[in-house]
């Protein structure tokens, strides 16, 4: 039965669910269903695209915020009372700072003057960039400078970046144990919690061993899948980690699939460069295993 609550059509949760489906399909009776896995990979690709867009916008906003903070601090030092004069000067920079892919974040669409801003926006697929900029209130810019820019799509609060936690979740395909490394501490987590993470705000610090009862690991000796018996990175749910700002782990995961299903992707080489620097060769085997027969 479908619950009356509309489930969160969130890129992260879809990625988790899709990965779970792909993993479960390996142990299904009758062998891997190529058609179903192909469709799941399409959902994964779509979720990945949205996720990368969001993350990139987040990174961009962070960078701009820091720049604006620096500028604002300098302004405040110079002349804390004379705001009108400075606003005109800093309008260009402030506009660039406030300019983000989501107009709702800034409150109004901003016209980007800076070339890098436009380039980033284009890559991120922001169509609002064409709109003319409304004249924002001076006090608006001040609020932009003083406070962290609101991030309606990303729950993370960039202002607390100093307290960010670095999380990596690893699923061992041999022992079927999910391990979460958080801030250097080791946790054993439950994969299945990924679906419920959205509802419970607990941090994933539970120590539970995952029992994949249906996994017939002995039967899975097909040589195609020996390559898959490596540690696979898995995106843990970040709902419970509001301070999470390290994008490299998520980006790496997304880049894994980027290399594995190159036929599905449009050429997004520039996004790939921005988001991922990690070598993909060793992890590509995991994705190849999905379609290898």
């Amino acid at each position, binding site marked *: 039965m*479908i619950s009356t609550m509309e489930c969160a059509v969130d890129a992260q949760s879809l990625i988790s669910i899709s990965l779970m489906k792909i993993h479960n399909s390996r142990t299904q*009776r009758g062998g891997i269903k*190529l058609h179903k896995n*192909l469709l799941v990979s*399409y*959902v994964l690709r*779509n979720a990945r695209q949205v996720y990368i867009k969001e993350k990139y916008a987040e990174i961009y906003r962070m960078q701009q915020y820091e720049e604006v903070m620096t500028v604002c601090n300098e302004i405040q030092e110079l002349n804390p009372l004379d705001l009108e004069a400075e606003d005109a000067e800093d309008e260009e920079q402030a506009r660039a700072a406030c300019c983000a892919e989501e107009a709702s974040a800034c409150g109004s669409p901003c016209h980007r003057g800076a070339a890098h801003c436009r380039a980033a926006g284009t890559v991120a697929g922001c169509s609002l960039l064409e709109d003319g900029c409304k004249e924002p209130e001076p006090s608006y810019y001040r609020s932009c400078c003083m406070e962290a820019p609101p991030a309606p799509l990303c729950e993370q609060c960039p202002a607390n970046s100093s307290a960010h936690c670095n999380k990596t979740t690893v699923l061992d395909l041999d022992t079927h144990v999910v391990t979460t490394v958080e801030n250097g501490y080791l946790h054993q987590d439950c994969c299945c919690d990924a679906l419920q993470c959205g509802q419970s705000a607990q941090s994933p610090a539970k120590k539970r061993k995952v029992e994949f009862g249906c996994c017939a690991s002995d039967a899975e000796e097909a040589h195609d899948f020996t390559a898959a018996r490596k540690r696979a990175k898995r995106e843990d749910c970040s709902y419970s980690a509001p301070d999470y700002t390290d994008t490299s782990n998520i980006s790496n995961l997304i880049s894994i699939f980027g290399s*594995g299903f*190159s036929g599905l992707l449009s050429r997004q080489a520039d996004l790939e460069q921005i988001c991922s620097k990690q070598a993909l060769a060793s992890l590509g085997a995991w994705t190849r295993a999905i379609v290898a027969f």
Partner: protein
Amino acid sequence: MMFKSAAAESSNKQKSDIISTVEFNSSGELLATGDKGGRVVVFQREQESKSQPQRRGEYNVYSTFQSHEPEFDYLKSLEIEEKINKIKWLPQQNAAYFLLSTNDKTVKLWKISERDKRPEGYNLKDEDGRIRDPSTITSLRVPVLQPMDLMVEATARRVFSNAHTYHINSISVNSDLQTFISTDDLRINLWNLEITDRSFNIVDIKPANMEELTEVITSAEFHPQECNTFAYSSSKGSIRLCDMRQAALCDKHCKYFEEPEDPSTRSFFSEIISSISDVKFSHSGRYLMTRDYLTVKVWDLQMENKPLETYQVHDYLRGKLCSLYENDCIFDKFECVWNGSDSVIMTGSYNNFFRMFDRNTKRDVTLEASRENSKPRAILKPRKVCVGGKRRKDEISVDSLDFSKKILHTTWHPHENIIAVAATNNLYIFQDKVN
């Protein structure tokens, strides 16, 4: 057209009893069902009798046999399911009936024949079958055929195996009655019904590098009259029509049917809901019908760029796609079927609902296959799903739909208005009301 229920077969709630395919034969006299346990059950229509006109045309069990058994592929360490994916009848040419049944890997030709006489009076063995000592035989006699109780026996006449690496999703008998095709995710093979150790590969869409795979074949069917023409549907929502006379390998299509995607409806699940789950030629051979997750489309073979007609089966599910993805319902493969005159099309939905669309009057109806509504000779009442706002008394709201009760397989009698609907373990047969 109002339907009343004529018969309902049921079995215990076992997973192996889930019906996985239903098919009338070309005369409509026989109805075959296949299930997840590898069994085939054939029903036969009762002869009309003057003395009991009210029992006109009820279907009774005619033959039951185990078609496929579970197998194990030792090379790949994979279990091969015994579930019957498709049954296709051959047109009747003599007293016996022939059908093709297939699981994921193997197609079998079954002969179903009646035996109502048996020979008696053998010389070398007695009536119990024990061999007699030849030295005790003093005279010879000619065995005589004596009547016996009718026995229907099914024998496997051909086994077509080892031709498919991927899972077979459909089979189709050619109008030449000599060949048939079997289709898996990436390949279509052409067989001769007489030859089991050889088949011809006529379509192969496997890319050189599997990582570049973007679509799979979901169904294929021969044209009902043109023995050289067949069509196959893909997971990308397109249909290709191929002519076997063009080349040995039909990688180049003659016609390509695809409707451009509406960008305003784009979502995470656009690719899934556009995947075609079934393709059927009309009896006339002029049209094609395709079923994707939310719609049924009728295509004119002469027009490739868009369908002739599009019917919404359950558009109210569009807002529920995320949940349906989570519980795997979005991967359900619904079939669709034409009536004998190609004027009405039918397909299944959830909550044991099935839908009929009249192509001429543009009217549609939603009916339910359930025990409560299907007392024998009861008229089926149209059902309605309430999409939003105030729910009327007889309506059912979208959130109350039971998604575990799905009607994936339906079939329509080739000449009359009799339909068979498979609802999980149960088979429902409905007939048009007779005044």
